[in-house]
């Protein structure tokens, strides 16, 4: 079996720790996404697992074997790079077979596997071409085929889709996920795109500043963010945050977060009109409404997600409402989530109604 265990991993470049105290495990056959903003250490972590960088401390094991000091070629991994790294002078077929050739796999075995992988990735017609003659999406498939043909139990992916345009990216992430499940590969997938992480992962490891911010299933991270950082990084638009300063009735030292889709806006009646529609971003299926506090024109916008066909007009005065159980509460000093507690600070209009 090919589970991956990372224990207290650390990497320093000139005294600066770019990865510190990172520990996690990926069970066999799981797809684990390393997610985070650029510079958070996710790519370095992946490269440490691949053996392309030496760790300053900690341990990495693959399938129960300690590989911390093993060179990349001996780790039994496949890797897909952001730039694809296809060899420009070799044909698609030779690119795919490269790993089998250097590992001296028998010729008929090579032929058999090539045919299988080419069919799987839809590259059968393109085997004779050079990478320069392929489109971006096709190159991406070659990189994928080259990784899976090796039949290594572990596949590492470093932002493999970031060079594709939006439509193609959506298609490819479904394909990669389907392949990973079909071939029961253990996969670690690095991305900065939270949508990609949410849609593909069994488990997400959210990184920030070289450390792990939160690890869990996509719905864990979305529904129960462990910190302010996690709450704001995951979800678009970012979670609305309220403090005592911006909303009456909140205790000091607490920050309350509400997702845009949980903010209901109702036409204002008399004294309850506390917000004004500042702008509307139409996205088709739904729209994001930016609301400005009526009392404070410079105040931070509150975002609400409404169905695209039922959106208010710009300048309209509205009242905000949400259900108490949609609130997330954080300690302002530590930024950490506060669990439990029944005290609600939902707007008065809801409490009264």
């Amino acid at each position: 079996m090919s589970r991956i265990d990372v224990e207290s991993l650390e990497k320093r470049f000139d005294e600066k720790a770019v990865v510190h105290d990172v520990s996690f495990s990926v069970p066999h056959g799981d797809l684990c996404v390393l997610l985070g903003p650029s510079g958070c250490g996710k790519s370095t972590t992946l490269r440490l697992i691949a053996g392309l960088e030496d760790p300053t401390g900690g341990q990495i094991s693959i399938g129960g074997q300690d590989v911390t000091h093993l060179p990349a070629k001996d780790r039994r991994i496949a890797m897909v790079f952001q730039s694809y790294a296809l060899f420009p002078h070799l044909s698609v077929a030779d690119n795919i077979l490269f790993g089998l050739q250097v590992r001296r796999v028998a010729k008929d075995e090579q032929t058999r596997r090539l045919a299988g992988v080419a069919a799987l990735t839809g590259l059968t017609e393109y085997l004779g071409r050079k990478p320069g003659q392929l489109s971006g999406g096709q190159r991406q498939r070659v990189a994928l085929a080259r990784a899976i043909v090796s039949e290594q139990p572990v596949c590492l992916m470093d932002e493999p889709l970031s060079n594709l345009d939006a439509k193609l990216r959506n298609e490819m992430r479904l394909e990669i996920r389907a392949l990973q499940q079909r071939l029961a590969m253990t996969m670690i997938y690095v991305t900065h795109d939270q949508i990609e992480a949410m849609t593909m992962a069994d488990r997400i490891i959210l990184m920030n500043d070289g450390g792990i911010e939160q690890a869990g299933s996509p719905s864990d991270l979305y529904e129960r963010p462990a910190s302010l950082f996690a709450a704001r990084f995951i979800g678009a638009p970012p979670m609305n945050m309220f403090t005592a300063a911006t909303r009456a009735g909140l205790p000091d030292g607490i920050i309350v977060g509400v997702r845009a889709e949980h903010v209901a806006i109702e036409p204002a009646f008399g004294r309850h009109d506390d917000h004004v529609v500042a702008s509307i971003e139409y996205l088709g299926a739904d729209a994001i409404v930016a609301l400005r506090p009526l009392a404070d024109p410079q105040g931070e916008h509150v975002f609400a997600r409404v169905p695209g066909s039922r959106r208010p007009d710009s300048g309209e005065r509205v009242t905000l409402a949400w259900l108490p159980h949609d609130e997330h509460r954080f300690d302002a000093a530590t930024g950490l989530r506060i669990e439990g507690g029944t005290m609600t600070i939902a707007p008065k209009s809801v409490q009264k109604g």
Partner: protein
Amino acid sequence: MHLSVRSVTKRFGSVTALDSVDVDVRDGEFVCLLGPSGCGKTTLLRIVAGLEDASGGTVTLDGADLTHTPARHRGFGIVFQSYSLFPNLTAGENIAYGLRLRRVAAAESAARVRTLLDTVGLPGIEERLPHQLSGGQQQRVAVARALAVDPKLLLLDEPLSALDAKVRVSLRDQIRALQRRLGLPTLMVTHDQEEALAISDRVICMNHGRIEQADTPEGLYMRPATRFVAEFVGHMNFLTREDLGRIGPIRLAGGEASGTTVLGIRPEHVRLSPDEGCGNVLSANVVSRQFLGATTRLDVDVNGSRIVVDAPGVAPHVEGDAVILALPPERIREFPA
């Protein structure tokens, strides 16, 4: 202010990049040219800017013919995908460049640069060189540089596509807010349909050098004129005659589908667990499930035809579940087969 493009055609050798295209940008309007790469949108923008000559047709501004006016006399502002700041000049000097050409006094120019940097949210970075700025910052300086000369029209050539997702969305909002505040007529090129919908007053959807549809974002999304638009903007389930054979007859708002057209319905308009009395109720199996945060996307199978359904929040269904769904007749659109 009214920019009017009439019957503009552009040929490169035997290839027709633009085929008799009409576009209008009215006062204060934000118009997007949307389409896949190679559809001619960038060429059109460059013809408006004067950086490319049209093979035929006219470009007029408030009735004055601009077709043969060189780019530098058009008085427009432009921002490119590649930032294109002058690498040897500081941010402040970059912004002041157009003012210097217009011989604006140094003190006045410095004050203007300060105001513009405030406007784009980068106060105090006058002295920095472009390579010391992040991509998003460089692009905001490029916007400030374009605005410095009080342009009659702002042209944006994929200004956001070199930036990463988070920065892209935040800069998109800033550009839009700024444009509304200044009331500056703007023409933007993009291949990102979400960007086009979010930012524009009107979207001109192009394909193969022709205009497929010019409409408001809502018009484009709710009433796509062609199958290309329906597919390019948002997601659309298409049901062909073969699909209807598998899933049974489908009722439309105006009667039963004839089978000579292709039917389309958006994923968020498909109802899960419908009430009594809904039309077109189907039973299906969940094939795959993608959690998207605010919604969950289900890929379901109806007798061998696939339909994508977006359910709000965290849908309880998992792969293999049997579900009942309905296709509300008033939400179904017809396209020529």
